[in-house]
C-alpha cells in the first residue's frame, strides 16, 4: 500500500486551505480609517488617513509649543511635542488600527481608528 493515497492529498489540501483562510481572516489587519487626536480624553481632531496633512494642537505644555500631528498616506505620527522625554515622537509612524502614541506631559493621545471598534486589552 502506498503511503500517500489520492484522498490523503485531498485532506491535506483542505486542511492547508482552512489554516491559511483562518490566518487571513483572523490576522489580516483591518486598515485604519482615521487618526483621532485627544486632549484630556476629549477628541480635538479627527483626520482622514488619505493624503498628507499636519495639525498643531495646544496641549498642557502649550507654553513650550504645540504638539504636531502628521498624516501621510495611511499612517500618522506625532511629529513634534514639547514633552521632555519625547516618547510619543520617538514611537514614529503608526500604521495599524488600534495603535496609540501617548504624549503624557501634554495630555495628548494620537490613535488610529479602524472601521470597527476594537478592544485594547481583554483580561480574564
Amino acid at each position: 500500500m502506498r503511503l500517500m493515497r489520492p484522498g490523503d492529498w485531498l485532506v491535506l489540501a483542505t486542511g492547508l486551505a482552512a489554516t491559511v483562510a483562518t490566518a487571513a481572516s483572523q490576522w489580516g489587519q483591518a486598515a485604519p480609517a482615521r487618526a483621532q487626536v485627544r486632549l484630556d480624553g476629549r477628541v480635538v481632531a479627527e483626520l482622514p488617513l488619505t493624503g498628507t496633512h499636519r495639525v498643531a494642537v495646544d496641549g498642557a505644555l502649550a507654553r513650550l509649543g504645540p504638539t504636531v500631528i502628521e498624516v501621510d498616506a495611511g499612517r500618522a505620527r506625532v511629529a513634534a511635542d514639547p514633552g521632555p522625554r519625547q516618547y510619543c515622537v520617538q514611537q514614529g509612524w503608526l500604521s495599524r488600527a488600534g495603535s496609540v502614541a501617548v504624549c503624557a506631559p501634554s495630555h495628548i493621545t494620537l490613535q488610529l481608528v479602524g472601521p470597527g471598534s476594537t478592544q485594547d486589552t481583554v483580561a480574564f
Partner: protein
Amino acid sequence: MDAHATSGASLLHIVPSERDRRLARYAVAAIAASLVEAAIPSPLPGVKPGLANIVILIVLARHGWRDAAWVSLLRVMAGSLLAGQFLAPGFFLAASGALASLAVLGALQAVSWRWLGPVGRSVAAAFAHIGAQLLLARLWLVPHDGLFNLAPVFFGAALLFGIVNGVVAARLLQENAA
C-alpha cells in the same frame, strides 16, 4: 466486553476475552503515549503532538472503528486519572476532542482505505480534535472571540502533527504487514 460469570459459591469469575486483552494492550500503549506527552512542555496549551493517536489509527486500520473508539475512550479516562486531571477542564477538552475525532473517523470509514490512507484520516481527525476543543473552550472556558485569534496556530499544529502521526502510523502498519 465479554464476561463469563461462573456462579460457584459466591465467586464471580470474569474471563477477559482475546479482544479484551487486545484492547487493553492498545489502550496501555495509548495511555503511555499521552503520559509521555504530558511531560513535554508546550508553548501554548492545546498544541500537542497527540502521539496516542498513532495507536488509535493503527487500531482503526487493523480492527475497525469500534475497537478504535474503545481504545480512545479508555485512553482519555485512564490517562486523565493517571495525570490527576479527571473531571478537570483538561479532561473535558480531551474528551470532546476524542469524541469529535472518533466521529470523523467513523464517518470516513465509509471511504475505502485504498483511496484514503492513515495520513488523510489522521489529519482529518486532528482538525476535528482541535475544532471541538476550540469550540468547547470558547463556549465554556474563554467566552470571548479573541480565542479564535489563536485558531490559525492550532490549525497549523493540527496539520503538522496530523501528517507526522499519520506517516508514523502508516509506516508501522506497513512494517508489521510485511
